[in-house]
């Protein structure tokens, strides 16, 4: 289980923000297996440190746990500065489906959905991009990267979850802009579109098995796409087809669809 030596990543660190999600954990295992050291950041630091202990024991890497709250913007810059040894890669895996019906009645809940999925990512990833941009100039050979998990829900607003959907649409647009900004510096930005995934977030939701991925399948796609310096990855290509159709439906028809 220990990484095969020599380990090219022995001195490299990746930061995983929202490390307690099923997808984030699966990514952590895959990166740790490749010998990367990990900063694991979560709202729940105790859980993060349990995950850190596990990864360190299994793969003989270094892993550090951090308290990180995506919606607490003022702390973001400070968190990123503290996060040492300085990471060269970051995965933003935080987000929440929220309770759409409650959010329609309760402005606070609606705002939380937007912040946890979108504004929080804007805040931290901007700090990360500034830092990576500056460091890349000095260490051009380092494989810097930024990856974030968006959603098919962001492709078009649907009646049943358009708050979550609009936040993810914002995130997808933000990442696309960030990618363009960091392009001259040679830092890839990856947008991950997982489709349905069987995780805690979708527990209690009946998911169609044919288009539902396991967390590890998403992780495999993420790790591979980071290596390939890809721009956007649709974990299950069938989703791309589905949304090709859905995106081109005229609004006059789409608005009548009740899903």
């Amino acid at each position, binding site marked *: 289980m220990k990484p095969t030596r020599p380990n090219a990543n022995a001195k490299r660190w990746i930061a995983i923000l929202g490390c*307690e999600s099923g997808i984030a954990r699966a990514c952590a295992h895959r990166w740790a297996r490749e010998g990367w050291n990990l900063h694991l950041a979560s709202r729940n630091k105790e859980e993060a440190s349990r995950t850190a202990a596990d990864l360190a024991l*299994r793969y003989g890497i270094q892993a550090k746990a951090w308290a990180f709250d995506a919606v607490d913007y003022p702390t973001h810059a400070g968190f990123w500065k503290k996060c040492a040894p300085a990471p060269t890669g970051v995965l933003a895996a935080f987000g929440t489906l929220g309770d759409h019906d409650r959010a329609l009645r309760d402005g606070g809940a609606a705002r939380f959905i937007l912040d946890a999925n979108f504004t929080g990512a804007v805040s931290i990833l901007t700090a990360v991009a500034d830092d990576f941009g500056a460091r890349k100039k000095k260490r051009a050979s380092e494989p810097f990267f930024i990856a974030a998990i968006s959603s098919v829900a962001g492709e078009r607003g649907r009646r049943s979850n358009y708050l979550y959907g609009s936040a993810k649409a914002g995130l997808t647009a933000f990442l696309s802009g960030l990618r363009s900004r960091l392009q001259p510096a040679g830092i890839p930005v990856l947008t991950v579109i997982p489709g349905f995934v*069987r995780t805690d977030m979708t527990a209690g939701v009946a998911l169609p098995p044919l288009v539902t991925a396991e967390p590890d399948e998403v992780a495999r796609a993420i790790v591979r796409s980071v290596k390939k310096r890809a721009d956007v990855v649709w974990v299950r290509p069938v989703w791309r087809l589905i949304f090709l159709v859905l995106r081109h439906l005229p609004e006059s028809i789409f608005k009548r669809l009740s899903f």
Partner: protein
Amino acid sequence: MRNKPIAPWGRFPTCEGVETFPETPRAAAFPAGRFLVRGLARSYGDACVQRRVLSSRKWKRLLAFDQKKGLLTCEAGLSLAEILEYAVPQGWFLPVTPGTKWVSLGGAIASDVHGKNHHAAGSFSRHVAEIELLLPSGEVLRTSPKRRPEVFAATCGGMGLTGVIRSATLKLEKIETAYLSQSVYRAENLAELMALIEARGGEPFTVAWLDVNASGKSMGRGHLITGHWASARELEKAGIPREKWLSVHRPPKFKLPWTLPNFVASLANAVGWKWASWVYHRLPRKYASPSLVHYDPFFYPLDFIDDWNRAYGENGFLQWQCVLPREKSAEGVRLILETCQKAGLHSFVTVLKLFGKGNGYPLSFPMEGYILCLDFNRTERLFPVLDRLDEIVVARGGRIYLAKDARMSARTFAKGYPGLPAFRKIKKALDPEGRLASLQAERLGLVTRRGP
């Protein structure tokens, strides 16, 4: 969320329900009202069945490992197989292991499982240094043999009813190699077999396979298998290459893709097994001359087929395992075998073993004496016979194993487990509303039928 059938390993009884798989053991993931936590669902009966089930399958983190003392702390959903994958290459093994490695750590504690070394090493809980319990109230409680010992005692063998086992610290055993030196002995009747077991009690691992179909003078004939960990020198002598000395088990070779139809299973029951055991008994073997065997076939002979329970057909099967006090074992085992034969029941896999002293924990199964384990296809005529076997056992001061039970009466249970009142007291203190319960706990009167 749609209901799905919730089944135990023996595929009986089942109920319609919902099983959820949270990433971490936390109170926020608890279903409302009554629920049960289960891991790999290897209990044979309703001990792992409930309408709302919280699965521990994703709770697989290793939390600490003390290389010097062999103390491993990990989350309760980790399977024994996964613990071995981590520990064996570093020269450590489970101090006690049941006959399958596909059970979770939490399940092993909750059933206080035993292995082939019970006479020497006791049951699983003897090697548990600490347990972290998550109570239905959300409170976290650490317990060990010294810290809140009454909670520890009730949790080991407590069938998951005292709280959700989040993590535990296990004291592993140092091994030089992953191989055992195995000897096989043949006995022509029960008296001979028991004498052999007593005589070979010095071996760390012993287990006997019994031919239930033999009657008359040969009644109770069978094989005794003994073993001890092989040293590096023995492996070197045998020419086993060094890189294999601490090799880990491999994944199962076969998988039964479907459940066999009932008629195939009952046909096997009617004719096949009777002759199979006869042939097995006469197989030419190198008796008494030790051979080197990897731990996987030695401890887990059935693990090479995934889902072997499907071979018993749609109706499923029942295991029945009892322990009898030592002085009443010979007569009791004979009576049980006679009763089965008169009723025309053939057990497929029959195991006889001598236990060492029990630990006195309220619901822990082991006590000093012989255990007998039988398994049968589920048929309607089976149930009255098993009731008669229960009577034989409790009349002699024995008891039935909860992890395998699917049908015993509350009376049989109460008679077999004198620690029951103590257990009820702890259960009341830790889970006053009776939220944690299996269908078995409801059947045996450990909680009220209608949950909160």
